[in-house]
C-alpha cells in the first residue's frame, strides 16, 4: 500500500483541508442543558478576563497584600491538578504493571489529564501579574532553580508534552496517519515513565509550595509532610475523578462506548474502590500521626478545629469506609457516591491549605469575588467543551479503526 492511499482511505477520499474543515464544525444538538448553562457563563467569563487585562488583577479579584493567592490558584491550579492525578495512576497500572483490564479507559483519562493541565496552566497565566515575562523561567535567561514553583512550572510543561505523546496515537488514528501512529505508539512507554516521574514530583511539589509559609497556615494544616500528603491524596482524588467522569460519560456518550466496555466499567470501578480505600487509609493514618506528633489537641477546640474534624471525618474517614464497603459488597452505586464525597473532600482540603487556613487570622479574610468564581467556572466549562469536541471526533471511547488494531501486534 503506498503512502497516499494509506492516508486518504480513512477519510473517505477527502483532502486533508476539507477533512479538517468539516471536523471543526460542531456536532451534536445545540440545546443541551450543559450548553444552556455554559454558554452565558463562558461569555461573562471572557468579558471578565478582558477587564482583568485592562484594569489589573485587583479590579476583578479580592486577593490582597496578605492573601496574594486566591481562587484561581487555589482551585484551578492546586485542586485541579490533584484531580488530574488519575492519568498517572492509570498509566502506571496499565503500562507499568501491564494490567490490561483498564486499557479501555486509559485514553479518556489521559485526555482528561492533558486538558486539565493545559487549562490550569492557562489559569496560572491569567493570575500572573506580568504574564509576558512567563518566558523568563522557561527560555533560561533567569533560572530560579532553587524555587519550588520553578520546578512545578517546568514539570507542567514537560508533563503536558508527555501526555500529548501518550494521547497522540488517537490523533493519528483520527487523521488516518498510519506511519505517524506507529512511531508515536512506540514512544508511549517512554512518555509514560517520564509522565509518572514528573507527576509524583509536581503533585508533591504543589504541597511543597506552601512549606515556607510555616506560620501563615493554621497549624492543623501546616506540617512538613504536606508534599507527601498531597501526593498520596492525588491517588484517590484522581481515581475518584475517573469514576465520576466515567459514570457521566457512560450516559452522555453512550453511543460511543461498546457493550463490552460498559460491562467492563463495573469491574473497573470495583477495583478502583479497593485502591481508593487503601490509599485513603494510608492518608488518614498519616494525618493521625502528624496530628499526634504535632501535639495539636488544643487547636481542636476552636472554629478551625471543628472544620478540621469535618474534613478529616466527614470527607476522608466516611468515604474511605464507603469505598471499603462498596468493594466488599460489590456495590457500584455506593462507590460512585464515595467518589463524589471524596472529590468534595479534596476540594475542601486543597482550598484549606491554599486559601482558608492560609492567613486564617487575617484581619480581612479573603473571599473570592463573583467575578473570580465566574472565571473559575469558565475555565472548567471551556475544558469540557474541548473534551467533548475531541471525544466526538477521535477514537477515545469508540474503538480504534481496524488498521490501528492490526498494527498493535
Amino acid at each position, binding site marked *: 500500500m503506498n503512502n497516499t492511499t494509506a492516508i486518504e482511505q480513512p477519510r473517505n477520499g477527502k483532502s486533508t483541508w476539507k477533512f479538517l474543515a468539516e471536523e471543526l464544525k460542531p456536532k451534536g444538538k445545540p440545546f443541551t442543558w450543559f450548553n444552556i448553562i455554559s454558554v452565558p457563563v463562558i461569555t461573562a467569563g471572557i468579558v471578565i478576563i478582558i477587564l482583568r487585562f485592562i484594569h489589573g488583577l485587583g479590579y476583578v479579584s479580592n486577593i490582597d*497584600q496578605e492573601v496574594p493567592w486566591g481562587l484561581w490558584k487555589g482551585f484551578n491550579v492546586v485542586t485541579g491538578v490533584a484531580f488530574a492525578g488519575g492519568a498517572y495512576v492509570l498509566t502506571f497500572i496499565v503500562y507499568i504493571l501491564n494490567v490490561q483490564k483498564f486499557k479501555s479507559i486509559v485514553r479518556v483519562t489521559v485526555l482528561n489529564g492533558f486538558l486539565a493541565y493545559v487549562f490550569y496552566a492557562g489559569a496560572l497565566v491569567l493570575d500572573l501579574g506580568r504574564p509576558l*515575562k512567563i518566558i523568563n*523561567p522557561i527560555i533560561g535567561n*533567569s533560572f530560579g*532553580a532553587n524555587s519550588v*514553583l520553578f520546578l512545578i512550572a517546568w514539570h507542567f510543561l514537560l508533563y503536558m508534552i508527555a501526555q500529548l505523546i501518550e494521547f497522540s496515537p488517537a490523533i493519528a488514528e483520527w487523521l488516518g496517519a498510519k506511519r505517524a501512529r506507529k512511531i508515536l505508539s512506540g514512544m508511549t512507554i517512554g512518555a*509514560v515513565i517520564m509522565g509518572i516521574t514528573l507527576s509524583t514530583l509536581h503533585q508533591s511539589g504543589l504541597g511543597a509550595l506552601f512549606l515556607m509559609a510555616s506560620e501563615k497556615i493554621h497549624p492543623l494544616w501546616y506540617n512538613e509532610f504536606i508534599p507527601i500528603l498531597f501526593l498520596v491524596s492525588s491517588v484517590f482524588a484522581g481515581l475518584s475523578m475517573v469514576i465520576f467522569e466515567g459514570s457521566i460519560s457512560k450516559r452522555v456518550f453512550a453511543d460511543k462506548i461498546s457493550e463490552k466496555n460498559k460491562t467492563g466499567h463495573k469491574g473497573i470501578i470495583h477495583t478502583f474502590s479497593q485502591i481508593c480505600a487503601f490509599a485513603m487509609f494510608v492518608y488518614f493514618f498519616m494525618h493521625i500521626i502528624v496530628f499526634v506528633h504535632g501535639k495539636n489537641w488544643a487547636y481542636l477546640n476552636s472554629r478551625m478545629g471543628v472544620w478540621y474534624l469535618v474534613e478529616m471525618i466527614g470527607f476522608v474517614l466516611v468515604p474511605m469506609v464507603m469505598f471499603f464497603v462498596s468493594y466488599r459488597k460489590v456495590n457500584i452505586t455506593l462507590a460512585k457516591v464515595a467518589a463524589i464525597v471524596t472529590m468534595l473532600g479534596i476540594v475542601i482540603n486543597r482550598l484549606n491549605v491554599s486559601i482558608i487556613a492560609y492567613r486564617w487570622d487575617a484581619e480581612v479574610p479573603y473571599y473570592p469575588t463573583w467575578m473570580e468564581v465566574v472565571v473559575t467556572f469558565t475555565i472548567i466549562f471551556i475544558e469540557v467543551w474541548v473534551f467533548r469536541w475531541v471525544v466526538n471526533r477521535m477514537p477515545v471511547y469508540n474503538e480504534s479503526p481496524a488498521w490501528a488494531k492490526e498494527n498493535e501486534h
Partner: protein
Amino acid sequence: MGVDRRFFLKALGLTGAAIGTGKPLGASPVVSEDETEFHGILFDSTWCAGCQGCEIACAEAHGLEGPALEDVPEVGKKRKANEYRRTVVNAHETSAGEFFVKTQCMQCAQPACVSACLTKAMYKQKDGSVIWREEKCMGCRYCMISCPFDAPKFEYHSTNPKIQKCDMCYDRVKEGLLPACVENCPAEAVKFGSRRELIAEARQRIADFPGMYHDVIYGEHEAGGTGWLYLSSVPFEELGFNTKVQKKPYPELTKGFLYSVPSVFVLAPAVLLGIHSATKNKSNQDNENE
C-alpha cells in the same frame, strides 16, 4: 542563598555552571574579609519619635505616594506598608510606655523571597540588600506567599504591576549616599553600617544601658539573621513584632524537597522500567501457557 543553589546544581551534575555563577556567599550572614560585608540598618525604638520623616523620605526617593497628612501613627491603629509606601511607623502602648516602630522588608541573610522566586527577580546582592528586578519578574506573587514578614507588596491595580519593598536604597548606597530613611531621621533612630559592626554596637548599647534595653537584638537570629536589626526596652511581642518566626533560614524548609528531586529523577524511571519489563515478561509467559 548561594549555598543552596550551588548544592542543588551540584546534585544535578551542573557543578561547572555553579562555579561560573560567582563566589559563594557562605552560610553565615557575615562574609569573609576579601568580600563586601553585608550592610544592615539598626533601628533603636527607644530613640524613635514617630515623626514619619523616614516614611516621607522613602516615598520621595522611590517615587511613591507616601503617607497622607492626617495618616499619623496612633496607638491601636495598625498601619501597614503597601504598594504606595514601603515602610510605616506605628505606635505601641507597652509595659514601659509608648514606643514607635518602623517596619519594612527585613533584608534577610537567606531570604525566603529569593529562594521562592522562579525568575531570580528577587535577588540578594553582595552588599546584603535584597532587590527586585523589574525585567525578570512575572508577577506570580510566590515571594509574597513565602516571606515570613509579609514584606513584598504587589500593585494589584496596575496593568504592569511591580513589587514594592524596601531594598535598603542600594542604588543610593552605591553612589556613596545613605539610605533615604537613615539620612532623614532627625532622631537618628536608624543607623546604617556593616551588619557586623551594627550588632557589636547594639550589644554595646545594651551593655552600657542595661536598664533601658531588653536583652535581645531582633533580627540577629530571626529567620536566620536579617539586615535590619532592632533594639527595644520591652519584649518584642509588645511592639507587634512577629516573634513566631523561626530562627533557621526559611529556605531550609524546602531544601529537603528540592534535594530529593534529582534522586527521584534518577531512581523512579529505573524502577518503573524494571517493573515494566518484569510484568511484561510475565504476561507474555502467561499468554504462552494458555
